[in-house]
């Protein structure tokens, strides 16, 4: 026992075994240096945003400097003909309408299915079903988008061709369904998180008033979690707009305005892939149009994401 030993012995033992005390000045200096390194790392994320904005804005500016391009044409035309020498026309709406068509189809699938699954998982499902359904959703969320593109091209489109008439090999419907399947786990897990964050006491009060599960889920829990669910919807829309590989493989490459989902359309991302896989080493107006489209895409998705984040933060119902 140390207490039994004589004080001289214990100090001697301490001197042998104790760590020499590190200098406090060194420790403090290290703390400060590490702190600044961490701040540098954190600034890196800001640098990414700034450089995205800078690069896209500068090259888009270069795009509009070309004499063939006018802002009125870009924002007011529905013809997108970047490669046809004298008949250049850069009407972004041809691409935006393709993106919108795909997004609407995808959301028509992902939003209702995702929300209903989320309500089921959070309010109805017994543990055994949860244990099956959650991994299925995780696997669906983890499958690469190029696989969904292959699935749309090789499975969904032939199925559609059997059911509907005059379905093109590349069509908006097949691609939209695949994008919907891709967004479904996102909607489901984000909405479920929002629903689960609603405190138990609210549910129990509603059950105590004689509500059925449906009453509790739809009339109490859903309104309480609405901000989180709307934010999940907006994030899913942003994801669908920015989806690339599915539309590059399955949606085709004809930029035009249509609402017929059986036709082939080109989206903004599809155009970017088409340009990038061609020869883009020459710095001409086609090359800069890539940046103009990317800038439009970035502005659209960033707006949606920001609104989603603000909705989630500002309009959250807070319960003690």
């Amino acid at each position, binding site marked *: 026992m140390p207490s039994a030993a004589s004080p001289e012995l214990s100090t001697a033992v301490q001197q042998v075994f104790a760590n020499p005390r590190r200098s406090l000045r060194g420790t403090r200096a*290290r703390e400060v240096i590490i702190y600044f390194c*961490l701040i540098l*790392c*954190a*600034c*890196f*994320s*800001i640098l*990414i*945003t700034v*450089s*995205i904005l800078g*690069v*896209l804005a500068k*090259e888009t500016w270069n795009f509009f400097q070309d004499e063939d391009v006018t802002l009125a044409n870009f924002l007011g035309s529905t013809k997108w003909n970047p490669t046809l020498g004298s008949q250049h026309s850069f009407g972004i709406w041809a691409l935006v309408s393709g993106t919108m068509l795909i997004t609407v189809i995808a959301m028509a699938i992902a939003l209702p*299915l995702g929300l209903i*699954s989320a*309500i*089921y998982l959070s309010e109805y499902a017994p543990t055994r079903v949860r244990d099956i*359904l959650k991994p*299925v959703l995780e*696997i*669906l969320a*983890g499958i*690469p*988008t*190029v*696989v969904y*593109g*292959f*699935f749309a091209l*090789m499975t969904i489109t032939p199925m559609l061709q059997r059911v509907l008439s005059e379905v093109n090999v590349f069509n908006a419907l097949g691609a939209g369904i695949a994008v919907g*399947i891709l967004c*479904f786990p996102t909607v489901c897990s984000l909405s479920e998180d929002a629903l689960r964050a609603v405190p138990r006491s609210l549910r129990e009060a509603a059950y105590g008033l004689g509500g*059925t*599960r*449906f*009453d509790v889920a*739809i009339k109490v829990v859903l309104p309480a979690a609405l901000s989180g669910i709307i934010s999940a919807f907006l*994030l899913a829309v*942003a*994801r669908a707009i*920015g*989806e*690339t*590989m599915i539309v*590059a*493989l399955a949606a085709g490459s004809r930029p035009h305005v249509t609402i017929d989902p059986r036709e082939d359309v080109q989206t903004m*991302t599809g155009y*970017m*892939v088409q340009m*990038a896989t061609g020869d*883009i*080493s020459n710095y001409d107006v086609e090359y800069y149009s890539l940046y103009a489209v*990317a800038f439009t*895409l*970035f502005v659209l*998705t960033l707006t949606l994401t*920001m609104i989603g*984040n603000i909705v989630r933060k500002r309009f959250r119902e807070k319960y003690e």
Partner: protein
Amino acid sequence: MTSERKKTRASTGSPSIRVQPTPPPLRDTRYRFFINHSFHWLCWSTAVASVAVLVILIHSILIQGVPTLSWTLLTSAPSQNASEAGVWPAICGTIWVCGLCALITMPAGVATAILLEEFPPRKRLGQFFHGIIQLNISNLAGVPSIVYGILGLTAFVTMFGIFSADPTLPGFEIGVHHYQQFMSEGDRAILVPVDTADAQPIQLSDGMLAYDRDLNSIEVHVIEPGGEYPAEGELLDRTLVSDAEGGAFSIPSFYYFRLPFGRGVIAGALTLMLVVLPIVIISSQEALRAVPSSLRAGALGLGATPWQVIWNVTLPSAIPGIMTGSILAMSRAIGEAAPLLIISGVVFISQAPQNLMDEFTVMPLQIYKWADRPQAEFRAIAGSAIILLLVILLSFNAVAVYIRQKLQKPLS
């Protein structure tokens, strides 16, 4: 149960109260139960549908991919002939790019998460800065990956055109030897060293130093056009006609480095880093937040400095969570094709990358290239490559789940 209670209350409650002339109308309970049951069925069928989608997806890929799954596919290089084509360069490219991406992303992501979680700001300015970074990261997570591809193309592949106007030509490079290659009169390749890749055609002179393809030094024997050919075989092998024109030929070392990066492995890895960095930061933040504050308080009470607390207490407890999140982020990186498609374009890659600046292809890109071709046999091998990719991804996810289950000890 609820219905009975409801009914009895409804039937016994109303006659006893005389003050109220009419009881408030109760909605038909049976109708509410019908709604509840049908909604339950709707939910259940949605759940079945989502399982069915996964089953159909996997079934269709197996049907299309399994017949062409072979050893050749795994070990050989892409080819114009579908039966000989393989994904080996793509697998190597995936390992190079994603490994490098993990090496860069992990420290940066975890450091940012530590700053955001473990150093709560005290001053107004600090709080402002903190809020900006946090908002910025959640917004970055929603940026489409193809936009990161465009940024990578400008910032890494061409480096804003600072170093050279033509992105295919490096402005600065080390670790590479340039040669001009001639075919000798005896049909052997002869390499004459030059300074740059785009050097002027050199004047051949008798006895100048050159190399053969195995880099053994040889002496060139130069003859005039129409001059006398040497009869002997060995001399004929190193004989060049003086007006012969050489082609540029470069042999990079393993440490070859150039600026701008070009369409190389490092540009791909940095671009993927942009894509997965927000994911790594957010998941690391969640892991750090899950460490109970009593542990930190205990360590601080023992006299540890903030960094000592983080390094010795918080990080070790949060490592399983950070690892799980990072592995899932890496599996996202493995499956990501769009930014790399912008970076590397569609080029034919027949061998695994040899250095950081080498052109590359990755699994999802190879799948895209094959699936985009109209021929049925290429689409079939795309299905087989998808099976390989899914096996890789599933094993990654299995490791993540294992770490989550086994290593995560209850901390509070």
